[in-house]
Each structure stands twice: as structure tokens, then as C-alpha cells.
């Protein structure tokens, strides 16, 4: 049952990702992206990560997608729609190299995995609770990256203002 749902969601996620790059209408691309994000959220849920599932839905499917659609409506993208993509030799080479990189990245996933299995099994998670575990890690072991992430957001904010404001 779980495996079936997983494969359905994985297929939907990949189909959505392909849709993002192949649709000519930007709004259709955005909707395809929404499909990918929701399918990935379901995959998180299958792995007992309820908190990440909720965050994925709220932040990505909710917030980020709204922003993307706003931007699409603000910009006039009709010209992009009319242009037809031509297949030039440079593009063919790029597709070839990209495909080769993609295939070689599949090797580690297909081969026997010699790595470690994590300690967070379903039973352990049921005992601790996924939100409790995550917040405990975030505010003890991962305190410094957590704080640095806020500095990163500040940098993004200052940088965006510096680039976009009419007169500083």
C-alpha cells in the first residue's frame, strides 16, 4: 500500500517537474510546479515526517507558489509564449552533456548502498515525536546553522533592497 502510494506520488512529482520546463504558458508551468510540491509533501508524509509535510504545504505550496504566480502576473510574458524554441547545435550538445551527467548521477542510487542506516526508525519516531525531535535538534545541535540562516535571510533582504530600490 505505502509503496504503491509512493510510486504514484513519485511519478506525479517527476511529471510535474517535466511540465514546469516544457509548458509554454508560465501559469501552466507554475501549476505543474504546484503538483510537484504537493506530491513531494505526500512522500514526506509516507516517511513519517508530518511536520515537514505541513511545512512543505504551507511554505512552498502556499507561500512560494503565491509569490511565483504574482510575479508571473506582474510581468508581461506573452512574448516568451510566442517564441518557438529552435534546436541549435549548442543546445544539442548541452542536452547531451546534461543527460550524461544525469545518468551518472543515477549510478550511486542504483548501486548497492554501503552507507549507514539512520537511527530514526518509525518506532523511534513514534516514541519521541517528529516535531519534538526536530525542534530539539534545531535548538541544540543545530543552533549555529539555524542562526546563520537568519543572517542569510537578512543578507537577501538588504541585497534585494540595494538592487531594486529606485533611489537609495
Amino acid at each position, binding site marked *: 500500500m505505502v509503496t504503491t502510494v509512493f510510486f504514484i506520488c513519485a511519478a506525479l512529482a517527476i511529471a510535474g517537474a517535466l511540465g514546469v520546463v516544457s509548458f509554454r504558458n508560465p501559469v501552466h508551468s507554475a501549476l505543474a510546479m504546484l503538483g510537484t510540491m504537493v506530491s513531494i509533501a505526500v512522500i514526506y508524509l509516507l516517511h513519517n515526517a508530518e511536520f515537514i509535510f505541513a511545512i512543505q504545504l504551507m511554505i512552498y505550496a502556499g507561500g512560494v507558489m503565491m509569490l511565483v504566480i504574482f510575479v508571473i502576473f506582474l510581468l508581461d510574458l506573452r512574448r516568451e509564449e510566442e517564441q518557438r524554441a529552435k534546436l541549435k547545435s549548442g543546445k544539442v550538445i548541452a542536452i547531451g552533456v546534461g543527460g550524461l551527467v544525469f545518468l551518472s548521477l543515477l549510478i550511486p542510487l542504483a548501486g548497492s548502498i554501503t552507507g549507514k542506516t539512520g537511527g530514526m526508525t518509525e518506532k523511534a519516531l513514534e516514541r519521541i515525536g517528529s516535531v519534538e525531535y526536530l525542534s530539539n535538534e534545531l535548538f541544540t545541535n543545530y543552533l549555529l546553522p539555524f542562526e546563520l540562516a537568519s543572517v542569510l535571510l537578512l543578507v*537577501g533582504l*538588504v541585497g534585494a533592497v540595494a538592487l531594486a530600490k529606485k533611489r537609495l
Partner: protein
Amino acid sequence: MDFQLADLKLIAPHIALLGTALLVLMVEVFGHGRRRPEATWISLLGIGIAAAATGMSCHENRLGFSGMLAADGYSAFCNMIILIVGALTILVSSNYLKDERHEHGEYHALILLSMTGMMFMASATHLLLMFLALETMSIAIYALAGFFRTKEGVESCFKYFLLGAFSSAFMLYGIALIYGATGTTQIHGIMEQFTQIKGLASSPMALSGIALLIVGFAFKVAAFPFHGWTPDVYQGAPTSVTAFMATGVKAAAFAAFFRIFFVAFPATSPVWSQALWLLAVATMTMGNFAALAQRDVKRMLAYSSIAHAGYLLVGVVTATAAAGTGMLFYLLSYAFMNIGAFACVIMLGRRGADSTNLDDYAGVGFKYPLLAAALTLFMFSMAGIPPTAGFIGKFLIFKAAIGKEFYWLAVIGVLNSAASVYFYLRVIVYMYFRERPEAAPEGLRSGPAITVATVVAAAAVLILGLAPGFVVRMAEAAMSTF
């Protein structure tokens, strides 16, 4: 392990810089509408405090924040390089910003925030922290590259941003694969897993992760074949930002690159050192030969920066303590000679017209003898001619490579530096042996701050070249703390 208050001491330099950046932003908000020269002095003061804090925390020699970052001699040395780069950049920018009418506190704040990211990169012992620090550094620099909002500047900003985001994704995927293979992202933990689990060193998952990590770093240090963005970005960005990018980003990225590969992946070193061997040779050869054809000094310096990344990669390939010493020394001397050279380029420019074509340098030697002498010194140092800092740096790195029996690498490196002499000397030839055209603009874009920066850089290049012993011993001490 829980958070301890004592750990704050390890990040005192970072906090000092971050606090200064916030202060500069606040001053900008409340001093609305006036031209504010204070930002320069506040920033310099903050950098001074961070330097003092680095000096105090360098003897701690321990990991903090649950193994997230190390305050050892190595991070202290790298912090000092980054602080010197930042201080020189701010000095160089002072007159430049005023002349270009872009004297905004945000510029200084972004430089300081970017430096904070760089310092976290140099001291991170955890791939996650390293990645966040790298992004902090990069995003600030993307914004700085487009700060003047000229057509070239915006193009450079956008190109750097898109390609940088792309390379970050590669690096992140690499980190994920390494985590999948080893179950940890702490670099000492990764090293332990490699020694404990047999066969992990040949697992495709771990090796792909390492390969993707190399891609990410190679992009940041502008190594072949991930260098394509460099010429356009360096040429389009404001000259002071170019100097900052070429030296600061390189220092931080190489510091993290070396620490991660030296500590976490010694078990797989036969594999990655071969890949990096090729990368190093291709990078220096491509950089030098492309620089031969350039007639624009800024673009020539961009290609020369690629070549220098190649020499520094020799240090990572060798991956011994001696190579680390050479790399640290080289990064320090590169900071002085490169920012010095860009300072001269700024002084010869005009508002809205950088005048970086070689023809603009004709006859400068007799018109402005001191400036020409300084630029000559920096060019000699970049070419690696004794008695300058650049020579000692190259000597230390190539000696380390020979010590680990990378003979061909050292030979190719030396041949490359011989070839590079041509385009560095060409600038000098133009300055001293060409007539200055009648229509050449009068006056220099000079001022006290940029003069101080140039004199300091020139003095440092000479001192590091004539009496390198003290700094080399410091770099050796820094390497011994791993």
C-alpha cells in the same frame, strides 16, 4: 551536546562583524538624506575589533557548537586574511564610491555581511554550516556586483546569481549524497566513517558526493571548466567589488575546500587528487593563455585570477601540511597584490568610464611615477618574480608538490608562470615605453584612503617577499593545529 555560553567566544569575531554591519545599516536609516562618510570608519573599527577577537580566540583550539565549527590556528589565519581583504576593500572603495555617486551604507553592510559568511566558511567543520556560510557570502556578493546598476553591472550580477545558484544546487546534492553514504555531515565524523566502514571509499554514492562537492567549490574559485562566468562578472562589477570577489571569495572557498578535503576525505584522496590534478593543470593553462589575448586590464586580471586559482589548486591536490602552509601564504599575498592592482586600476579610471583598456595605460609611468611603480610591483608579484610575495607563495606551493612527488604538476606550474610573465609585463611596457596620448584625461581618482590601501599593499608585497620567515612560521603553526 548542549549549547554552552563559552562557545560564544569562538564566534566573537563573526559576531563583531555582524554587529558592525547592523550598526552601519542603522546609521544609514537614521542619518537619512545626508552623505555619510561614517560608514567607512565604523566598518574599519568593526574589522579592527574582529581582528582583536580573532587574536584572542585563536588559542582555544577546539570545536564548538556540537562540532559545527573550529576555532583553531587555521581558521584564525584565514580570518585574518579575510579581515585584511575587507579592510583594504573598504579603504579602496571610499573615494571610488564618492566619485561614482554611490556612497551608500548598504555597500559597507553587504561587504561586512559577506565577510561574516566567509569567516564562517573558513572555520566550519560541518557541511551544513559551510553551505549556509557559502550562501551568505555569495548572495551579498551577487548584490554588490550589481550595486552601481550600470548595464554591465546588472548583467554581471544576474549571470553570477544564476550560475551561482546552479552550482550551489550541485554542491547541496553532493552534501546529500555524502550524508547518505556516511550518515553524518560533520567532517571528523565523515572521516571516522571512512576508516570504520570497509568499501565506503569505493562506494559510488560517496564518490559522486565528493565529485559534486568539487564542482561546487571549483565554481566558487573559478576553476576550469567552471570558470565561464568569471571574465564577464569581473569586468562588469564595480572594480572595488571585483577586487573583493577575486581575493575574499577565493580565500574563503579555498580555506573550506582544503579543510574539508584534508580532514574528511583522506581515505579517497587517490581518486580525487587525480581529478583535481587535471583541474589544476587545465585551470592554470587556460587562465594564462586566455589572459595573453586580453587588451582590457580588468578582463586580463580576471583571467589571471583563474590562473591563480590553478596554482592554489596545486596546494589542494598535494594536501599535505606543507601545501597548506603554501596555500595560506599564497592567499595572503594574493590578497595584497590583487587588491593593490585593482586600486591602481580604480585610480586611473573616471566617473562612468573605467578606462581599463591597455591604451589608457600608455605613458602613465612618467605622468604618475609613484602609481606606476606600485602597479609594476603588483604585476611583478603576480608574475612571481622575486623578491616579491608572489614568488615566495608559488615557491612554497610548488615545493610542497615536489615533496609529495607531483613532479609534473610542479613543472607545468612553473612553465605556466613563465608564460604569464608576458601579459603582466605588457602592462608595464605600456606604462613606460608608450607615448601618452594628447587627449588623455588629467588627474587621478585618488584620495587619502585609497592611497593608504595602495601603500600598505605595496609594502606588504615587498615585506612578504623579502622577509617571509615570520608569516611562513605563522602559517606553519596554523597548519599544525588541525
